[in-house]
């Protein structure tokens, strides 16, 4: 009974993720207007169901007269690519470090584990903010900063798993057969960790999207006029006392997308590895 419900979660999550990806890919065809097109005559139009709203701009317009719905559809491009790329960087770094620490142990492990402890003691957000301020706000810098600050979560889990597999018979056998360490790691240890890594990475995409949005919200991420949900929310905040929709819809887009990713990731975890529900949840607490 429980597993069926889980599968339903997985399906709902997958549909939301698919929808967001479709928005990103098909934005030029889906969006009713050019997201950059400014028109003073139609500035700050409320959503269609509010007094003064029009079907031409179903979610209303911003202070420059740009169509909010079109900007939100285009915003999917930024959020999804930023989330996926940041996870790719963090995952690659983190998995590599975890494999090294877990497999070689000793000094390598001591250095990496201590580095993980240091990184996890940082207020992650402040570290990312400071780093962005230092290197300057841009899409590429943001990916690098999120990736370089986000790796320890993977290292912790991958290290623990590698430690476990290192002592297993099939790894010992490979070693006895004279296989090199790197070959053992790639061909015999890593394949066993793939499920765990996929589940973690899928859930991390949501966290990275929220972080990207917050950086952009503060003006330290995606720069205007590129439509990004976080930056739109930041702009909307200025108008929140008078024009609620400017902040409400971009945030809703972030919320629904991350919800979809979390449902998908949680479901995936149950499908791929029903026994690790607890450990993975604990790892995500950082």
């Amino acid at each position, binding site marked *: 009974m429980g597993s069926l419900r889980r599968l339903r979660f997985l399906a709902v999550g997958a549909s939301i993720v698919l929808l967001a990806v479709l928005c990103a890919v098909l934005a030029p065809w889906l969006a009713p207007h050019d997201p950059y097109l400014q028109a003073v005559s139609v500035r700050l139009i409320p959503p269609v169901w509010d007094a003064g709203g029009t079907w031409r701009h179903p979610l209303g317009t911003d202070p420059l007269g740009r169509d909010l719905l079109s900007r939100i559809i285009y915003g999917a491009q930024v959020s999804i690519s930023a989330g996926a790329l940041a996870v790719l960087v963090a995952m690659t770094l983190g998995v590599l470090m975890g494999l090294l620490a877990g497999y070689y142990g000793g000094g390598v492990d001591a250095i990496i584990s201590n580095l993980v402890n240091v990184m996890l003691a940082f207020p992650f957000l*402040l570290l990312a*903010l400071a780093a962005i301020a230092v290197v300057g706000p841009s899409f590429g810098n943001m990916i690098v900063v999120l990736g370089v600050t986000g790796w320890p979560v993977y290292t912790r889990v991958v290290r623990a798993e590698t430690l476990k597999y290192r002592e297993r018979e099939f790894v010992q056998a490979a070693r006895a057969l004279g296989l090199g360490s790197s070959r053992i790691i790639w061909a015999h240890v890593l394949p066993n960790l793939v499920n765990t890594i996929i589940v973690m990475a899928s859930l991390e995409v949501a966290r990275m999207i929220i972080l990207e949005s917050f950086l952009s919200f503060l003006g330290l991420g995606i720069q205007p006029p590129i439509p990004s949900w976080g930056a739109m929310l930041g702009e909307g905040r200025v108008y929140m006392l008078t024009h609620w929709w400017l902040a409400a819809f971009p945030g809703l887009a972030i919320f629904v997308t991350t919800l979809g990713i979390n449902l998908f990731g949680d479901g995936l975890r149950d499908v791929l590895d029903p026994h690790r529900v607890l450990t993975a949840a604990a790892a995500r607490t*950082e």
Partner: protein
Amino acid sequence: MQVYVVHRLFQALFVCLGISLITFLLLHVVGNPVLLLLPQDASDADVALLKEKLGLARPLWAQYLSFLSDAARGDFGQSLFTQESALGLILERMPATLELTLAGMIVGLGIAIPLGVISAIRRGSLTDRLCTVGAVAGQAMPIFWLGIMLIILFAVKFRVLPASGRGTLWHLILPAITLGAYLAPLTMRLTRSGMLDVLTQDYIRTARAKGVAERVLLFKHALRNAAIPIVTILGVQFGRLLGGAVVTETVFAWPGVASLAVKAIRTYDYPVVQGAVVLLALLIVVANLLTDIAITYLDPRIRLGKAHG
């Protein structure tokens, strides 16, 4: 026990050194404070002069050592803009941050722990399912959006609560709810699974079999043992809580350390950034240390080897 505490103290000290080193490298090597402080057309002579004045012309290791010895004495330098002591500025705002985190923790745990326990006891019930769905949704919620929505709803539409600032208890309500909502979902899920673990133990079955009243069973036997995972959660969550405070303080213009740090980051007031990052990280290190010691106290089985094996 004592050996363990001493070992953990050394580990914490090492983490502090690492934190100071990373912060220092980030601000002094990756970034160049001089170029950011001067106008773009500043002459080389100006750059050299300012470097000299800020002590940035010395070799890096010398800069780091003096940074370290100053930091150990609580001296992070002066704010580049107000010329006030960075530590003074930070400490001045610390009560506001602690007030907010404490309030957020009370709200978050006040929601999460009872719901987590109830979900575990009534596993599979409608309440449990609603809680699970709520937790999943809550985990996906970007809290800066939640904060803004709360402001729009309660400060703009209903006009019952202030939108920003600090002062009365009324000012604390929305920020505390926002921060609590950030903390609650994960805490609830972990409390639930911790409680479920305990409830399936043999001694619970034994107690039930010998006819211990359900209420006594829950509060005396189960909850007391579930305290260990819950304390662990609290410690681990402290770092997240401070991260959430960064967001909450920014949204509600709450005059705490985190919003000071964000402002300093934007204006590249690096002594203040340095001080705030190091001090907040120290708070997290101390919280983690206290958690580990508390767990050892709660569970005598946990010893060095087992705890970190």
